[in-house]
Every structure is written in C-alpha cells, then in structure tokens.
C-alpha cells in the first residue's frame, strides 16, 4: 500500500516539475480555493542542526534553540493557518552519508512537511538534491557555500532545485562586504594575510575574499595564507608566522572554538598591536570572549544579524526577538539563531501566501512556488528569496568597540556599514566568481 502512495507522489512530482505556467493559473482561481478546508493535524517540521560535536555549541544549539522558541511562539499564535507546528529536532551528525539516509527517512517514511536544516556545506550539497528526487520541501538554513545553488558557468539555469531553498545568504556576501569595508576604512592597506580552516569552508571563504579585495584594492599584496586544521587547539605557530609576515589585515573565516582560541592566543602574543582581523563570520565572538575581545576589528555578521541592528526603536521585531531569546536562554542571539528564525518564518510566510492564493492547505509545490520570490520581515530587516531559491540579505560589517553598556565589545554604532544586498550578492544566474570578475575597478 505504502508503495502505491509513493508512486502517486512521484507522478505528482513529475507533473509539478513541468508545471510552470500551470501553477500560476491554479493559484489564480481564488474562488474555488475558499471552499477547501484545512486539516487539523499538526505540521511535521524537521529541524536539523549539529547537536553533538564541536559545531553544536557555536551553531547547532543556538540555531535549534531559536527553532524551538519560534515554534513555541507561532503555536501560541495558533500555528500556521491554524495547524500546530510539531517540531522534530535532529542531530546533523554522522557525516553526509548519514544525513542523506536520514533525509530519505524523513521525507519518505515520516512524511515530514518540511526539512529546515544543515550547518555544514558538505551536508547541504549532499542533501539538497534529494528535495527534487524524493519530492520533499527543504530549506537550507545556515550552510555557507556559494556553489550550492550556482551552476558551473554563467549564465546558469535557475532555480537549480524546484523544492530546495536556502533561506540565508551565502559566504560570498560576507567576504565581499568585508572587502568593501576594508576599502572604505583602510584604503591604503598594503599587506594582507589569511588564516582559514583547511577544508572547503575556509578555502571558499578565502577564495572569494581574495578575488574581491584584489579587484577593489589592486595594490594589496597577499603576504601569507595559512590553513590550520579544523579544531586546532594551539595557534601559537600560526600567530608567530603571521607576526613574521608583517600583515596589516588578517582575513579569517574561523568559527566556533577555533575563532575563540585563535583570538585569545593572538591577543596574548600581541598580534593585534600590528594587525587587524577581518572576520567573515565574527559576529558571535565578542559575546563569547567578553572584554578580552580586542577593539578595532572588522566583524561581518553573516548578513545583518546583530542583536543591536536594526536599532530597537526603529525595528521592534529585533528588540522582541533579542529580548525573548535572552529571556529563554540567557544569551543574546547570534547569527545562527537569526538564520533559524528566517527558515521557519520563510516556511510559514510561504504557506500563508500560497494559501491566500489557492485556499486551503497548499500543496508542497504550491508552497514552493510561493517561496520563490518571497520577501518577509525578519529581526534583521528584510529577507528576500530570489528566483534562484537563494536568499538575499543586506550585510553588516562593524568594528568592535568597548562601551559602558555591555560587558563585551559591541560593533561601534558610529561605524556600522550596511551594504545593500545587491552590492554584495551576485544576481541570479551569475556565479559569484564571474560576477566579481566583471566589476569595474
């Protein structure tokens, strides 16, 4: 029996893939829609983040906490179209092979309505294609690789996956924004070095940053590129090598314990007397390190995800989100928490939008249609999901500064650089590399 339903699902899927214009006309028939009823059963939402291993502390748990909080909040408001959210938190453990099997189980056996997940780029690359293969809606919420939704050569066909989305911007914008900020505040910089983890995330981050900075500031010389192993506990050798190189700016995509360890040891070794950090996802670490975090460093927020931006008086949603999160978990939310908010909210918004067009509970394909070209409010401003199924956000780069109000440095309110999304994200259909190559310098 089970098999039959599944076959039918495939046929539906196959139809949906070629639906295109058809979907629009379905959505247009509002009158018919109003009569459809909405089931009372809860919506099954699988949220997958690292709950074990070294990425659990810095990303997985803050992300998962935000999922739990938002599911709770939305359920108190009546859920999505009256249906409660049944959140299933799962561990992103065991590598890409386990995640592929798990995603299959969630879609085919557990028949979840949507999967919100994945911090690791490797997992995203392995799992997202399953969305179309199996006919399951998937929102990648935090992974950073720029090639997830891009083709090999521009222009490429968009979207790459009919049912796969990413509800946050990719690492391209972090590194481009950093380069732009450096151009603004240190246009005469001569020597730049990089320290990035020796795996795809670190390599990709440096790759984009190097392309961008060389285009923006042609005089810059790359004096050192270091590739420490992920989860290194002793950076003294790297710090000395950086000191020996005479770099003025050090680009880094280090995250989690690695970022904390590096900064701590670098500070004790006096690295910041001669160089400034430019951290592509540095936003969480002042809070982690407290007053020990050095001032005057460039920190990118992986979007505009910062607990003090947009200012609370101008954007109450941020105030609400930060206060609620702090109340529940004792910490200010960091960018993974904001990313989780975006994922669950994107789903909710898309369902509601689709329902308003077709009535009743929308099918997965209708929800997906509604999600391509979706814009919604987030605590960080607006998030736009483009036709390439990749989100676009504004990107914030700040400079750390100690104030009286917090026990850790915050981003200097006088020097907040917010780059609009079109300035730091390649347009749909162009690869990030080719887009940068086409900049007029």
């Amino acid at each position, binding site marked *: 029996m089970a098999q039959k339903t599944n076959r039918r699902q495939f046929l539906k899927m196959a139809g949906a893939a070629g639906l295109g214009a058809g979907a629009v006309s379905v959505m247009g028939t509002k009158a018919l829609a109003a009569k459809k009823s909405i089931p009372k059963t809860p919506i099954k939402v699988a949220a997958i983040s690292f709950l074990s291993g070294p990425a659990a502390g810095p990303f997985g748990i803050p992300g998962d906490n935000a999922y739990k909080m938002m599911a709770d909040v939305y359920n108190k408001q009546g859920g999505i179209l009256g249906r409660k959210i049944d959140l299933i938190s799962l561990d992103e453990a065991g590598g890409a092979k386990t995640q592929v099997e798990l995603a299959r189980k969630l879609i085919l056996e557990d028949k979840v309505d949507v999967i919100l997940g994945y911090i690791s780029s490797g997992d995203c690359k392995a799992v997202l294609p399953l969305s179309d293969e199996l006919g399951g809606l998937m929102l990648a919420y935090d992974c950073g690789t720029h090639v997830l939704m891009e083709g090999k050569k521009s222009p490429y066909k968009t979207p790459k996956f009919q049912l796969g989305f990413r509800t946050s911007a990719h690492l391209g914008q972090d590194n481009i924004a950093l380069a732009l900020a450096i151009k603004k505040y240190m246009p005469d910089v001569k020597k730049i070095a990089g320290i990035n983890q020796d795996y795809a995330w670190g390599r990709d981050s440096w790759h984009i940053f190097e392309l961008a900075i060389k285009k923006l500031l042609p005089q810059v010389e790359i004096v050192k590129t270091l590739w420490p192993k992920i989860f290194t506990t002793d950076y003294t*050798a790297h710090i000395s090598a950086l000191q020996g190189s005479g770099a003025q700016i050090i680009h880094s995509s280090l995250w989690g314990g690695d970022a904390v*360890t590096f900064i701590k*040891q670098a500070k004790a070794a006096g690295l910041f007397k001669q160089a400034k950090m430019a951290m592509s996802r540095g936003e969480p670490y002042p809070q982690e390190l407290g007053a020990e975090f050095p001032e005057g460093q460039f920190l990118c927020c992986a979007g505009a995800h910062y607990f003090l931006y947009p200012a609370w008086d101008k954007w109450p949603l941020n105030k609400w989100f930060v206060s609620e999160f702090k109340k529940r978990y004792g910490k200010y939310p960091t960018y993974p928490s904001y990313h989780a908010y975006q994922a669950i909210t994107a789903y909710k918004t898309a369902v509601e939008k689709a329902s308003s067009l077709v009535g009743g509970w929308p099918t997965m394909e209708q929800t997906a249609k509604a999600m391509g070209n979706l814009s919604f409010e987030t605590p960080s401003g607006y998030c736009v999901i483009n036709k390439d199924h990749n989100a676009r956000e504004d990107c914030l780069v700040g400079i750390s500064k100690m104030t009286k109000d917090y026990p850790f440095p915050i981003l200097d309110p006088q020097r907040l650089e917010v780059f609009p999304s079109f300035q730091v994200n390649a347009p749909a259909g162009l690869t990030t590399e080719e887009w940068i190559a086409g900049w007029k310098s």
Partner: protein
Amino acid sequence: MGLIYALNGLYFAAFLFLTSLGLSIILGVMGILNLAHGSLYAIGGFVAAYFIGMMTGSPAVLMLVTAAAAAMVLAGAVGLVMETTLLKPMYKRPLEYQLLITFGILMLIEDLIKLVFGGESRYASAPFDAMGSIEITGHTYPVYFLFVMGITALAGLFIWWLMAKTKLGIMLRAIEMDRDMAQAMGIPMRRLTVVAFVLGAALAGLGGALVVPTTPAVLGMGMDVLIMAFIVVVIGGLGSLKGTLVGSLLVGLTRSFTVAFYAELEMPLLFMIAVLILVVKPEGLFGQK
C-alpha cells in the same frame, strides 16, 4: 623570531606529551590501543572548565590547581570504572574486541559528557588571562604557555622517577617487556594494570585541564587529540617514555617550523613522518616489538 618558533614548538610538544603519555602507557603495558583516550581528555577539559567557572575571582594558580586536581581525579575515576568493568574481560580476548570496546566506550563517554555538561561550549580562560604576557627578545609571549611547559616538565620528571626508580615502575616495565615472564615472576599483574590505566587516564585528564584556559571545552574535543597522540605514539614507540618525549618534540617542532615556512605542508608532513616510521620501524623509534 626563531626563538619564538622554537618556544611555540615546545609548548605544543609539552601538551602532546601529556596527552600521549597515557595512550602510550596503556598501549605498552596492556597492549590495548585505547580509542577512548581522547574522551578521558575531554572529561578533564569539561571538569576543569566547570571548576574554573565556579571559582571566578580566585587567584589563577589556585584555580588551576583545583581544576587540574579535579580533572585528574574524575578522569582517573572514569578510567578506573572503565578498566575494572569493561576492559578487564577483554585482555584475553582477540584484538578486534579490545579495539571495538574502546570505540564503544568513546561513543558512550561523548554522549555522557553532553548529558552532564550540556552541549554548549565551555569557556574557562580566566587563568590564561590573569597570567598575562611577558616580553621575550622583543616579542610578546603568554606566560601561561611557559607555565604549561613547566607543569609538563614536572609531570614528565615524576613519571620518569616512577618508572625508573620505584618498584612499581620496574614491575610495569617488566610487564611491558614480557607479559608471560612477568606473570611467571609473580608480579601482581591485575593490580598493576589497574594502576597503569588509572595513571594514563589521569594524565589525559590533566592534559584536558591544562588546555581549557586556552581553548574552550567543546563536544568532540577528544577526537582530534586522539589522532595527534596517536601520531606521537606511532613515531616514538609503543609504551616508551623516551619515545613519547622524542615523538612529542619532533611533532611539536616540525609543526611550528613548517607553519612558519611552508604552511601547506603542516598536516601531510606529520602523517608522512608517521607512516614512514611505521613502514621502516613499526614499533616506533624507541619501542619494542
């Protein structure tokens, strides 16, 4: 700069020495490659971070001593339980069971740590910050690193004294050289094995305790250390104190200087050295077959 590179290498070596010594002792005396060794180190790290967190405001040395003692006691206790309940039945069993049970224990401890301490990273840098930095030939250098080197030297001397000068050490070495002969000589194998295991576990705990002031305690922190300790033991020789020392120094200094001059080579070079030694002299530089 050369001096600083050398100091960096020595610091890394010191740390490696502490964490691999236990692995080496257990491998030498019991012939078991303890895959859960890194987890004992992680226990040390989490316990120390917990205690340092509790003692905010106390003098740095007091914090460290308390944290290190607690870490050693707890890691040692877990080691004791593990040895007497799970490993004891394994000594007469084939290799595959010995390896797999430590693999299972590794998974158990990882999740137990998460159950007890929660999943969040634990920061405990107060002693590191409190000790500050000094100037060495015009370069700033953190005092804490010098402190770790000192503690390691003391621990190393203590272990050397234990192994070379005491009856306990002589008996342990006899077991290492020839198990059957030692048994025939009436050496209390059972008790000594327990002692060796607990000692190794406590050293791993100490290693974990000393590292948390410089880097947060995170879930899975033991996995990576296991690999590094494994390389040291492979290079230095199974069960050899001298070998562990030389292996740690070799790895520490090689790493420091390759990062400074040919950064790309860092990890591959270490693996290559390890594999080369395994191929040429599988018992390691100072080990016995």
